[in-house]
């Protein structure tokens, strides 16, 4: 008997911990952070633009390199190994730690920015000061906490978007969709408004549509638009057309996804930063019930609030029946705008999944969902009898839709909440699901459903 000399195993498949290249990339990120830190505690005193270039440069370069090496040795395909063993992605200690960290961050950001180093006279310190160089470069003044938030948000969508593209590089739908998200966040949500401000025009994020952008019809905002000549009027008309014309038309042809998983910033963060947590969404029928109650209640809330603010603007009166417009908008801003969409929506990613806000809260999603379910060509069709009821689709649906329960019966999936992310179709090992824009339901198509 001859002993087996060489067992051909390509080692890259077998290394589980970080490989050297990944550690190398991490070094860049750490150096970038250290540079920023040193600047912010004041121990280095050089040109802010150099800090900016080196600090952020190292961080960005390092993370892209990291994503590259994370997936480089792996074959093209679905990469969900060990998701439920990993403490971070299975509500373990790390998930709680991250959840608490994010929640605290949001609370500080919204209500106690001074603890992040914000100072009203521009003498920023701490985290906020880190962003001063960039702020000086872009608009020549010190950072506000919202600028910090905007930069972090954009950076995260950009970097984790790149990671997402590496992860799903075999899937063109996912790649193109993610490029779209990155484009809308960096260009339309971040850069364009900064440019507008530097041109002395009012700040505007053109893709942020009422009612997600709940302050659009606030009195001060209407004033701002009216005071800015034809450009202000353009913003006003664009905003109204967006919700009354663009939204119904696009949703009719493509479903809710054109916005929720291609354009929207909240959706964008959920799809990139939230991707590792999508499996945590609750799939029970109970939570579906809660979802419907909550999201439509908030829709009603935002409509009533908006009507009231308009009423106040035109009549000068704050009270109508039991409503007080100032109180309503204050409550909405606090409970829905900040607490729900920010603190719970993002802070709870590692515990409740990535789309808590989109699923239970967002009034824009409610409108899109109603159109999607009642009058849209979008649906997910199932492929005859190929479903093996494995459950991957339901598990990885971030909106908590029990996709399997439809697929195993051979039914089309037409659900108000589906954001068309296409992940169910991507993870299905039997090629059962396809997102499509076609009118007829499976029953009308006269196709035998398998069981």
């Amino acid at each position, binding site marked *: 008997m001859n002993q087996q000399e060489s067992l051909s195993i390509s080692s890259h498949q077998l290394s589980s911990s970080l490989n050297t290249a990944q550690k190398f990339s991490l070094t860049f990120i750490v150096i970038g952070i250290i540079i920023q830190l040193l600047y912010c505690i004041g121990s280095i005193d050089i040109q802010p633009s150099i800090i900016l270039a080196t600090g952020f440069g190292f961080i960005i370069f390092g993370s892209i390199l990291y994503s590259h090496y994370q997936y480089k040795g792996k074959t093209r395909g679905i990469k969900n190994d060990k998701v439920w063993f990993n403490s971070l992605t299975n509500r373990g200690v790390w998930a709680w730690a991250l959840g608490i960290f994010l929640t605290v961050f949001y609370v500080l950001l919204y209500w106690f920015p001074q603890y992040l180093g914000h100072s009203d006279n521009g003498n920023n310190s701490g985290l906020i000061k880190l962003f001063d160089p960039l702020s000086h470069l872009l608009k020549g003044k010190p950072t506000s906490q919202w600028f910090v938030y905007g930069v972090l948000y954009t950076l995260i969508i950009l970097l984790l978007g790149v990671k997402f593209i590496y992860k799903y590089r075999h899937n063109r739908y996912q790649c193109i969709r993610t490029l779209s998200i990155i484009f809308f966040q960096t260009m339309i949500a971040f850069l364009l408004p900064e440019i507008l401000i530097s041109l002395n025009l009012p700040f505007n994020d053109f893709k942020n549509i009422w009612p997600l952008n709940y302050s659009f019809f606030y009195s001060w905002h209407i004033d701002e638009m009216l005071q800015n000549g034809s450009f202000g009027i353009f913003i006003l008309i664009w905003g109204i057309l967006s919700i009354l014309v663009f939204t119904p038309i696009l949703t009719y042809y493509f479903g809710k996804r054109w916005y929720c998983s291609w354009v929207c910033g909240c959706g964008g963060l959920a799809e990139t930063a939230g991707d590792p947590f999508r499996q945590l969404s609750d799939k029970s029928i109970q939570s579906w019930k809660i979802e419907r109650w909550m999201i439509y209640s908030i829709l009603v809330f935002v409509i009533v609030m908006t009507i009231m603010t308009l009423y106040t603007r035109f009549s000068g009166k704050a009270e109508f029946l039991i409503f007080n417009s100032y109180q309503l908008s204050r409550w909405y801003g606090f409970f829905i705008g900040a607490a729900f969409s920010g603190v719970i929506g993002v802070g709870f990613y590692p515990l409740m999944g990535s789309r808590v806000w989109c699923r239970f809260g967002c009034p824009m999603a409610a409108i899109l969902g109603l159109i999607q379910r009642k009058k849209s060509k979008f649906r997910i069709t199932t492929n005859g009898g190929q479903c093996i009821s494995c459950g991957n689709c339901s598990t990885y649906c971030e909106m908590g839709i029990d996709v399997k329960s439809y697929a195993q019966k051979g039914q089309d999936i037409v659900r108000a909440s589906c954001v068309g992310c296409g992940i169910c179709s991507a993870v299905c090992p039997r090629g059962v699901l396809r997102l499509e824009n076609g009118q007829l339901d499976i029953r009308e198509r006269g196709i035998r459903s398998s*069981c």
Partner: protein
Amino acid sequence: MKVVIIGNGIAGTTAARYIRKKSQHKILMISSECEFPYSRTALMYIYMGHMKWEHTKLYDDQFWIKNRINRLKDHVIQINIRNKKIALQSGNIIDYDRLIIASGSQSNNYICKGNSLIGVQALYHLQDLHSLEEKTNNGINRAVIVGGGLIGIELAEMLSSRNIPVTMLVREKSFWNNILPEEESQLINNHIRTHGIDLRLDEELEEILGETTVQSINTKSGTNIICNFVGLTIGVSPNISFVKDSELKLNKGILVDSHLQTNIEDIFAIGDCAELLSPDSGRKSIEAVWYTGKIMGKTVASTICGLPTEYHPGIWYNSAKFFDIEYQVYGYVPVKDPNTDSIYWEHKNGLHSIRLVYDKSSSIILGFNLLGIRYRHEVCEKWIKEKYPIQNVIENLSLANFDPEFYPEFESEIVNLFNQKCNKTIRFSSSRSLDLVNQFLNT
């Protein structure tokens, strides 16, 4: 009336669900594997950490209560046909009016020295998965998988997801080449190897060595491989030992007629454990696949609820996944058949292929074999069932494409191949929209 179902796999579960849809019968479903029906096909994903067991349950826990389907976790050891009773391991006796046997398969054993050492196992039941998990936790230095079938390759993927080096011994000269035509089989060989699996073709297990636990194995060609885990995946056969001594007529499985009834009135057999006396043409007498269990469950439910229904599964299809490559087959795809010819296209990256099989003399389409590409079941089925000529299929090929949006369409390459081969000048036009598919299906 009281219907008792032995087995809570997909066959038993589907039967129960449809009996409830159609009647008020009492339903009792017995299984010794687990309390809640789950998807056996998802076993691999549990081990790889894609899902937890709860995610693979066929229905949520409320479903069974709402539908008044009683479940019992126990093992049936005997059937008393004359008194219409079954005996359980717990000592309980249960009577029935109608009995459905849906006991599934069991893994075939490999007859060789050392096959009962600790470290040797198969993969079929949940219990197998638990024991695999335990062995993984104790440390597997190398795993040897014996057998090149669908479960074997799944096991290889599972183990390598846990960074365990895997050697696969496959008796055939190429992976699954008794089912896959040569080119596809070669493609999969390569794919398996790019995943770091030590794939040994034309190689068999001779013996397993060790005191109480596995220490190494010898192959028939005389190689010794050091390993402490041996996965036996050499196929499955009907799990019918508990009815061996009854009056039920058996062959490999429990013999049933086209109504899925056994030789005894009021006793039916469905799923993996059933063997058809006269299967439809193009179908086998035992087909251990998921969807046939489903169709049988639905069929038997109709019969039991007073509407005698024959079992006709239609045109053959199936699917699987080999690591990253999805596989779908529709219709007749022979390894070799001189009466058929085929158009075969393969992507140069070795991840996609399409094969269309047609009858040589009549040019009628017979089947589709797809790797790394998704085709729409209903469309392929209609082409085959209605005997479309190959040229017509080729002209409209993208109707069948079911890949996600924006995926490259390779159908034009098939058209070119066909033009070359048959001296035609067909022009390819993409028509991947659902509306066109609907039009086609409704004509």
